């Protein structure tokens, strides 16, 4: 226990104001840089160069883009419903920016005036707040689609609403094992569990949860392979078809802040947050105002853990982009199939499995610690392997037909139809249906 001393009431207000401004600035700058990063990564993946002309390595490209968007003409098409048309981008961007408020981004900082927690608002309802706000994000999209009074935008909004509502369910359920293991929904407590109490990043003991959460988060943020809401090849650009200039830019910022928040959440919930792996000097938690349990807080520890948190978040952001430029878009029925028939039952089954394991371990009297986590890791590994084995069978997300239920072992390989398939479909063996 280290008594640092709590902030005074005024000090708390000042510190909070500073944190709000700092976090908001960092998020906005990061979002701007992500647009650059995305374009560069996309270019490299496709053997191109990407924006490299404005500033060193093209780093000032977001600035140029922002300036362009500010100076562009605001077009407001005649058929739109004006109030909601203007309201929609705002509704899209607010929840995206607000969710970051509860994410702890560094170790607590000792100052001469008292201990400052490195989280804008350490809400006791942490993750629930995030779930609530992230589901608010869909209103902006739906409203944009509806107010645009355009069939493409409307279809985009429709798809977004159905998709986000569907994946909200598995997103929430995939987090239930985390609550069960941590026993709390406060994000600082989740980080502390991973540092001290269990000593394992939750991606290990709750591996399948992690997997499900990542997939659902991809769907929640409307990113490829789940970007049905803007499906360029079908819907022009979906819900923001009618938007231009800064209003369009707001949707863009909203999307990237969702990506940032989702990445930060993945890092916090499953990769230990700002925890530095394998070392103990950073393992600390604020148990009461100004009182720290574990290691002693220091300024350099705050800075270092902040960097580690940024690195973890950036890693997930890069994964987001890497996936986007690799995988093709799902068909709509496949999205629904995956959400309701694969992720939801899996999440439910996993909750049952983890709940049972926790009950059994408690009954056996195993102490809550690293060994406890390792047992859960074993259970999760088996569960993940089974899940992947099932999903890897070609039938779970198949084509638009009802698969014949033939046991794998007894499947008879049909001889190829005698006239060889035409050159265009060579190598694509059509099973004769008789």
């Amino acid at each position, binding site marked *: 226990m280290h008594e640092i001393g709590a902030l005074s009431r005024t000090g708390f207000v000042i510190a909070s104001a500073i944190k709000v401004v700092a976090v908001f600035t960092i998020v906005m700058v990061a979002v701007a840089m992500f647009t650059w990063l995305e374009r560069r990564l996309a270019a490299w*993946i496709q053997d191109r*160069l990407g924006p490299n002309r404005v500033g060193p390595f093209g780093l000032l490209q977001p600035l140029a883009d922002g300036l362009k968007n500010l100076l562009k003409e605001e077009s407001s098409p005649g058929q739109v419903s004006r109030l909601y048309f203007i309201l929609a981008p705002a509704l899209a961007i607010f929840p995206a920016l607000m969710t970051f408020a509860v994410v702890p981004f560094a170790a607590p900082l000792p100052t001469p005036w008292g201990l400052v927690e490195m989280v804008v608002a350490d809400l006791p309802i942490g993750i629930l707040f995030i779930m609530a706000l992230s589901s608010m994000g869909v209103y902006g999209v739906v409203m944009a689609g509806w107010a645009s009074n355009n069939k493409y935008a409307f279809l985009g909004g429709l798809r977004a609403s159905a998709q986000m509502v569907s994946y909200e369910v598995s997103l929430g359920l995939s987090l239930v094992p985390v609550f069960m293991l941590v026993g709390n929904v406060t994000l600082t407590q989740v980080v502390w569990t991973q540092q001290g109490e269990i000593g394992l990043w939750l991606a290990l003991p709750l591996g399948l949860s992690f997997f499900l959460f990542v997939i659902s988060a991809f769907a929640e943020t409307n990113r490829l392979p789940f970007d049905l809401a803007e499906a360029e090849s079908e819907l022009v650009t979906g819900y923001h078809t009618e938007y231009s200039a800064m209003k369009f830019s707001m949707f863009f910022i909203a999307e990237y802040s969702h990506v940032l928040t989702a990445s930060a959440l993945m890092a916090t919930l499953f990769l230990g947050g700002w925890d530095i792996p394998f070392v103990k000097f950073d393992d600390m938690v604020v148990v009461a105002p100004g009182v720290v349990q574990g290691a002693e807080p220091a300024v350099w520890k705050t800075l270092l853990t902040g960097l580690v948190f940024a690195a973890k978040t950036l890693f997930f952001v890069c994964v987001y982009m890497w996936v986007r430029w690799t995988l093709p878009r799902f068909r709509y029925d496949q999205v629904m199939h995956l959400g309701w028939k694969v992720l939801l039952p899996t999440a439910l089954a996993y909750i049952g499995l983890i709940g049972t394991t926790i009950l059994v371990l408690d009954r056996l009297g195993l102490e809550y610690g690293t060994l406890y986590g390792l047992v859960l890791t074993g259970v999760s590994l088996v569960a993940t392997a089974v899940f992947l084995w099932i999903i890897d069978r070609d039938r779970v997300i198949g084509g638009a037909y009802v698969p014949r239920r033939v046991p794998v072992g007894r499947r008879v390989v049909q001889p190829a139809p005698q006239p060889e398939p035409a050159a265009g479909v060579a190598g694509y063996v059509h099973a004769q249906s008789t």
Partner: protein
Amino acid sequence: MAIGVKTVKRPEGTTSYLRATLKGMALTFKHLVNPRKVTLQYPDEKADLSPRWRGTHRMAVHADGRPKCVACGLCPTICPANCIRLVPGEDDQGNRYPVVYEIDEFRCIFCGMCQEVCPVEAIHVGRDYENAEFTRERFVYDLDRLMAQDHEFTLLWDPEDPLSE
């Protein structure tokens, strides 16, 4: 299916979505960390021209700044695109010179026959391709402009062996 949906029978036994996904991710990652260099950053880097490149014309000049052209009229005659306009003149010593010599670079097909036919090696096609202008009129190159061009002559013409002998 209630409505007429064409179903594709996929090769069930051999399909694996997960493995295919991972394979794709590995492929893109390979390109991400080690992209092939294919882009030419044009205004900074330029592609090598073919040795047979024939670009916009230039007129060779004498040391005293007169055009080498003797207004013989062979190039407008041979020109398959009929893009050369030549009005010949004669000074008091009986030397012929071009009064008007214009090449419409829009009509020109860059066959290089004007250069081949020229008896005094005056008109040449050049190694040049950045010809953008703001008006169509600017593409009719007059004599002064042809003489002022400073890009290289085409490599098809060897100054050591001007008549290709």
